[in-house]
């Protein structure tokens, strides 16, 4: 029987190196998802507060579906259903081609979709907190719509939406663990392998929990720093 400290050491006997590589995958997945999710979420929010009814309906369908479906169901639908559609489309061009879905990419797409559905709500309420006079002022000094958006609205929007987006980021970080189910070697998967091999199940799943706690603490430190710099800029204005 190996001691607990041997099991948690770095190297061939211990599992620390495997768990750290899993944690790296977790962080990478979350970081890769973030920009995509933020962009989609922003445009969905734009659609939701548009004056054009058709755009509003289209955006609302998106959030209703992807906030209503369990994350796991969305993941499975895309992971198992996506290849079917892709296969069908590719067979039209190249009949002999087969498709192999990468768990990282599939996870990234699904997490970005879920993240954007929640982030769009945050952006929407931030949009509503910005008075209409800000747009009118922008137009009055001769800025175009895009310029008003970029130079007048967005800087305020980021400041208002930041706390909400922080929550979205924390749930994104936690949702990455679901991708372990389709075989991505992230924290939980690596911990599960270690647990199965060594029979120390409680130990290794606790380690996985600690990894997620550390990630949560680190990201709250980081978001705290960003928040402070944002509010400093607001004060200087």
């Amino acid at each position, binding site marked *: 029987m190996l001691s607990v400290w041997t099991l948690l050491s770095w190297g061939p006997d211990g599992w620390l190196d495997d768990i750290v590589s899993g944690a790296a995958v977790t962080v990478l997945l979350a970081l890769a998802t973030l920009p995509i999710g933020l962009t989609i979420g922003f445009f969905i929010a734009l659609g939701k507060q548009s004056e054009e009814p*058709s755009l509003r309906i289209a955006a609302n369908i998106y959030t209703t579906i992807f906030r209503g*479906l*369990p*994350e796991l169901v969305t993941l499975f639908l895309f992971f*198992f*259903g996506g290849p079917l559609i892709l296969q069908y489309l590719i067979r039209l061009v190249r009949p002999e081609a087969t498709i192999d879905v990468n768990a990282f990419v599939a996870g990234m797409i699904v997490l970005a979709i879920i993240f954007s559905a929640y982030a769009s709500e945050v952006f929407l309420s931030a949009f509503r907190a910005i008075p209409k006079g800000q747009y009118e002022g922008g*137009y009055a000094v001769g800025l175009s719509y895009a310029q008003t958006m970029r130079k007048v609205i967005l800087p305020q929007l980021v400041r208002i939406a930041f706390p909400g987006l922080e929550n979205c980021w924390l749930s994104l970080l936690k949702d990455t663990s679901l991708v372990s189910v389709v075989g991505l070697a992230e924290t939980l998967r690596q911990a599960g392998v270690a647990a199965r091999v060594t029979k120390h199940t*409680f130990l290794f799943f606790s380690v996985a929990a600690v990894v997620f706690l550390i990630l949560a603490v680190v990201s709250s430190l980081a978001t705290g720093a960003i928040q402070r710099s944002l509010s400093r800029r607001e004060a200087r204005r």
Partner: protein
Amino acid sequence: MSVVADAKTAVERPPPRARGWPRSRIIGYVLIGIWIAAGGGIVAYMAWAWNGELFAKYGPSYIEGLGVTLSLVGISIVLGAILSLPVAYARMSKNRILSGLAYCYVYFFRGTPLLVQAFLVYYGVGSFKPQLEMVGLWGFFREAFNCGIFAFALNTAAYQAEILRGAIESVPKGQWEGAASLGLHKLQTLWKIILPQALVVALRPYGNELILMIKASAIVAIITVYDLMGMAKLTYSRTFDIQAYIWVAVVYLVIVEILRHGIEWIERRITIHLKR
């Protein structure tokens, strides 16, 4: 003045009023078209791939799975609500140690994924088999369903404690003071004055928590509970038919939408006195 009419100075004008076919309308119609095509495609696929035999074979198991999902969520929400009372009390207590412990509890359950917590309970208790057998709890933890309830109740208790704390703290302090000056003691004040106001605030977060639990309950399928999602997984593993997941998605979506609208209705009803 003629300066204004100088045609050479290019002035960027504010956007004109939308009429006819502005860009946003075209994009909107295209997006709705994509949704209709996607929805129609799924319906057409379901019609094309319809297999009555399969439906007759697996349909009843979905109903059974729905029952498991609903009972799992129901039991853990109620247990979590009971457990959240002491946690919320400790969190608001002036005793540093007590509130620190409650803070750690809440931070742990909110900071780690529910899937990790479920694995920790379902696979992790195996490490303590001799001790559990000694106190006679091994039979309880051998069942995956019980492990699911255990993990979910602890998890939702952390969230519900925060909801309860936030709602109670949202009631102004003057309400406590006013009640105290009328001679009501603490428990009476809480029960008759604070809670009725706090629960109006708490209704929406509680509703969201219920919806989150319904959605999160899908993950018990991974620890071998045959809930709605578990049945879909079983069906898919036997038939390799993506319809298994499409059906389950529809069921979840319907449940969540019913709950969401129900909660909105209740909220409208109980806040009538606050509207002007």
